[in-house]
Each structure stands twice: as structure tokens, then as C-alpha cells.
């Protein structure tokens, strides 16, 4: 019975994948309509998955509070605000408060973390030579330094004469964009073969990759 279900799952997933793929490439009305329908179902399921994900978040933190694990106060704060935000979102009369939560708590908190990230990245770049002491790392740091010098206006000097006008545009327009396109082509080829493996039923993420 389990094998039958497994085969049925694979047939449904592969058929849906083939229909969406063909609907993207071929201008046949029935394929277009089927593709749109399947994608609509996918979006509805994705919405449902958010609810399941939120339940996962809630249950994990509730378990930590129950077990009194270290830092459980943080978990309690998270649970409190999760419920509060949910209540605000679900109660029509409290809708205006949503903007307050978003602009007053979420955005400033995320911006603060981005500020920490700026410091972390500077520290990380200083640590690079310890982690990976080779020619590529030296070139990485050197080009990052040139881009920084060529980008920022400096007090009293403004733009750096040669670096801003010649070196930075040459690095970013020629060297970096060439390399970046190469990497992106590689990634798109990897994405293509990953998709094909799923269409062949070799990778089955919907069955725990059995």
C-alpha cells in the first residue's frame, strides 16, 4: 500500500511538473489554463504552509519554555508578541495598529541587525587572511578595497581621481560583471538539471527524498 501511494505521489508530481513546464514554453490554450490552475493551487498551498510554519515556530518555542531551557525568557517574549501580532492582524478594529507594529518594531529591529551586519562584514574581511591565506584572498581583499575607495566620496577630497574614474568602473563593469555572469550561467544550468532530476522522479523532495 505504501509503495502504491509512493508511485501515485510521483505520478501526480511529475505530471504537474511536465504540464507547468510545457505550459511555459508552448502556446497551447489548454496547457496555459492547466498551468495557471496548478500555479494557483500552489500559491494557495504556500499560504497554508505559512500557517503550518507559524505553528512550528510556536510549538518549538513553547516546548523550550516548558523545559525551562536557558534563555527561555526570550522564548516567552517571542510567544507573547507572536500572539499579540496575530490578534492585531485578525481583529478588524485593531488593523491600524498593524502599521505601528510593522514600522515601529519590525523595521527598526531589522535595520539594527543590518547595522550589526556592516560591522560583522568588516571584521570578517579582516579575518579572511587567517581563514584562507592564498592569492585569491589577496585579490578579493584588494579589489574590495579598490571598489570601496572608488565608490565613497571622502571628506575634503570628494571622489578619488584615478580610482573613481578608471579603476572602479573597469573592475565592476568588466571583471566583476563577466565573472558574475559566468557564475549565474553555472547556477542556471544547475537549476535546470535539478528540475530535470525531479521530473525524472530521481529526487523526490515531496517524499522525503526517498
Amino acid at each position, binding site marked *: 500500500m505504501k509503495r502504491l501511494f509512493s508511485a501515485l505521489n510521483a505520478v501526480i508530481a511529475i505530471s504537474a511538473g511536465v504540464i507547468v513546464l510545457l505550459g511555459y514554453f*508552448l502556446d497551447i490554450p489548454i496547457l496555459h489554463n492547466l498551468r495557471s490552475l496548478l500555479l494557483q493551487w500552489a500559491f494557495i498551498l*504556500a499560504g497554508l504552509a*505559512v500557517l503550518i510554519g507559524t505553528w512550528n515556530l510556536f510549538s518549538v518555542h513553547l516546548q523550550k519554555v516548558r523545559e525551562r531551557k536557558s534563555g527561555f525568557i526570550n522564548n516567552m517574549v517571542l510567544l507573547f508578541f507572536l500572539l499579540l501580532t496575530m490578534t492585531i492582524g485578525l481583529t478588524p478594529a485593531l488593523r491600524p495598529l498593524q502599521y505601528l507594529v510593522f514600522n515601529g518594531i519590525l523595521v527598526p529591529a531589522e535595520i539594527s541587525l543590518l547595522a550589526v551586519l556592516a560591522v560583522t562584514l568588516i571584521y570578517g574581511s579582516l579575518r579572511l587572511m587567517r581563514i584562507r591565506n592564498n592569492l585569491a584572498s589577496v585579490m578579493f581583499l584588494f579589489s574590495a578595497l579598490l571598489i570601496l575607495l572608488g565608490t565613497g566620496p571622502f571628506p575634503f577630497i570628494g571622489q578619488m581621481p584615478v580610482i573613481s574614474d578608471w579603476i572602479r568602473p573597469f573592475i565592476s563593469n568588466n571583471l566583476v560583471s563577466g565573472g558574475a555572469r559566468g557564475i549565474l550561467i553555472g*547556477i542556471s544550468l*544547475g537549476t535546470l538539471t*535539478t528540475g530535470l532530476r525531479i521530473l525524472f522522479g530521481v529526487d523526490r523532495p515531496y517524499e*522525503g*527524498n526517498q
Partner: protein
Amino acid sequence: MINPNLAGIGIVTLSAILMMIFALIHRRSPFSFRIIQAFTRIQRAARLAVEDGTRIHFSLGNGNLLTLSGASALAGLVLIRRLSEITSFGDRPSMVTTGNPIINILAQDTLRTSHDNSATDNTFKMSDVQFTGLTPISYVAGAMPVMSEDNITSHVLIGHFGPEVGLLTDVGERKNASVIAASDSLTAQAVMYASSSEILIGEELFAAGAYTQPSSYHASSLLVQDILRWVTIAALLAGAVLKLAGIL
């Protein structure tokens, strides 16, 4: 003028046929691949985790399965499937954090399947897979405390990330844990290069399946990627030459 839609379906069909042919060839005489240090380290980390009684943390990022960014998370799931089968023999099974609810469900399913297949006494716990946040920053903020746990000695970050991944790699390095990172995002790759001990560049992350399991289709897909890459290079060079000659 070439119809882009027909060209697209032609490339997909050609890739599919090549993949099947190479898979058949691989079954008779297996291909050998170059050594990628990151995969060697990941497998060693899994074995060490079993011996030490520690655990591995997998971070799948916040790639959305309904967009192109989901492919990197799917590659991550294949890696989790193979490695968690090894780590489920240890005292502490692997744990996974995700920033996308669909990937979270798939990761739960993958980890559960690994536990079932390894047939050990360890039971799968839902809390081993955690959805930590919906936005990139909230995901990282939620994953940082998980990464700070003392019993985790290796972190494998594989999926779609932005520059905020620097916060995760920093936590790993500060806890003296080994951090192996891979992403489909260029920004994240630059940050990972500067801050993690081992990194997979570009399409190397899609080779996870071929390097961790003896599957003919995974091996053949790498060969197809190589062939398509050379075809693309040839087409780019031909285009440049024709442009120089004034034909295009």
C-alpha cells in the same frame, strides 16, 4: 530568427536525453569527479558528529520553492537526506533551520525519512526542524540562537541567502564550529567567501547529490551541466566573432 520558446524546450529535451544516456553509461563504467574539499569536509563532519556525540546544523536559507531560488534549497535537501542518515546513528541527530514554510515541511519529511531508513532507536522530533522567520533578517535572527547552542560543531549553510548570511557565519566562527557554506546568490557567495571556512562556488552546490550518494542520475546531471557549459561558451565566442565580423 530563432523562437526562444522552441529553443528553450529544445535545450530542456536535449538535456533530458543526455541525462538518460549518461546515466546508462555511468551504471556500466562510473565517472570519476574532481575532489571538492567542501564535500569531503561535510562528510567528515557528519562522521565526527556521530563519534563525538555532537550535532550538525543545516541551514536552508529562505529560498522560495515557487521561484528559481528554491532550487538551491532542493539541493540542500538532497544533502540533508544523505548526511542525516549517518548522523541519526549518533546521540544527537542533525537539526535544520529554514526561512521558508514549504521548505520547512519538506525538510521535516526528509529528516523523518532518514530516521526511518536508518532504523535506530532515535525518534524523529519535530523540533529538530525549525522555521525561524519569514523575512531574510528575521530568519537569520531566529537561526542565530540555534547556531549558538554548545553541542553543534558543524554548520552547513546551503540554500538561498542574502548578505545577512554574514551574521550566521560569524556566529559559527565565534563558537569555533566549522562553517561550510553554499548559495545561489552572488552577494551571499561573496560574504561567505570572506567569512566561512569552506565554500562551494557557483554551481558546485548542485553537485551535492553526486558527491554524497552513488546515484547514476546525479552523476550524469553533472556531466550534462559540463556539456551545456561548453556549448554556452562556444555560443558566446561564436557570437563575439560574428559581431566583430559585422555579420550579427
